[in-house]
């Protein structure tokens, strides 16, 4: 996906529930209004675990 793009927009475009992930850029947590560039390495980390 080409940048620049806001974190919140990226998550929405990927159809991911924002409550179920954290977005990490270059190893650092970033909030929804952060702008991501083409050169950024971005991890969308799931946070939901299902152990029961």
């Amino acid at each position, binding site marked *: 996906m080409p940048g620049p793009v806001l974190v919140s927009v990226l998550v929405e475009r990927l159809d991911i*529930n924002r409550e179920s992930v*954290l977005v990490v850029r270059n190893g650092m947590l*970033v*909030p929804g209004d952060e702008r991501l560039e083409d050169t950024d390495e971005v991890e969308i*980390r799931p946070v939901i675990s*299902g*152990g029961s």
Partner: protein
Amino acid sequence: MKCRVCRGPAVIDVRRHNANFCGDHFVRHCQEQVRRAIDDFDMINPGDRVLVAVSGGKDSLAVWDLLLGLGFEADGLYIGLGIGDYSDTSGSYARRFAESRGLKLLEVDLPTDHGFDIPTGAKAAKRVPCSACGLSKRYLFDRAALEGNYDVLVTGHNLDDEAAVLFGNTLRWDVDYLGRQYPVLPSRSGFPKKAKPLVRLTERESAAYCLITGIDYLVDECPMAAGNRHLGYKELLNDLEVRSPGAKADFYFSYLRNAASYFRSPEGAPTAELGECGRCGAPAQGELCAFCRLQERAAAVAVDAPRRRTATTTDSVSAETTTSDIAASHEQHHDSYTGGSQ
């Protein structure tokens, strides 16, 4: 976004609090939420010896770290469940956390110490793996806490876990389970006191706490939990949360405040009388406790396996009796979910 407290750059937004936080103030927010849960529900008293059930995942490591940060004395307990590489990996995360901080980590290995693993136990019980896993963990947690003379057994259940369990119990209007769902359960004969200090934090907050504080945890989900009902409930509740921030907390804490008392017995414990397991002495409804019966059936499955490769007979384990085993395990005065699998 700016931090609500210091106006510095925020790293996370917490919509249900209508707040953004920088790293330092987010950590403080988590500490305050845990402190408040402990105080509101009288979870841990000063000087208590605490045993934390750790899986190597975010919630259990976060709660261990938070309790230590709040000044509590807390050891860890890791249970190897024999779920292939997943168990090997999760154990290494728990050990690294303990070693790097000089903490005491107790370990129990289900295959080595009790002769079966979760896949075999699930097959024997003819249930989904999460049922056999939950039953085994509850038993081993209780036993370790009692044998170690710990005052409180802590698990890493978070707000999402509790809201999802409440959602499932409410869908079925299961009044017995509803009566046992509470953030703290008192000790009684055969059971330690149990507490869930993360009930005021969501999974997203728990994961963010680990990222910000540098806790290295196992991100991968247990391969046996994929597609389970509990995960489905969490997805539904998160859909609701996006539309209405705070919905999960409202659902859970309004239940505790306004409805839980209708379902609980006066002592907060079930009224059914339990006997003693003839093999291990744990609380039991029949001659053996649910765990010892599971162990027996798992041994039978293991012995029968080679024979069945050439036979066409059906499994000799009765679905009816194994179902009652699971029900007996739920009879214990704790809810049916015990945090991350290992």
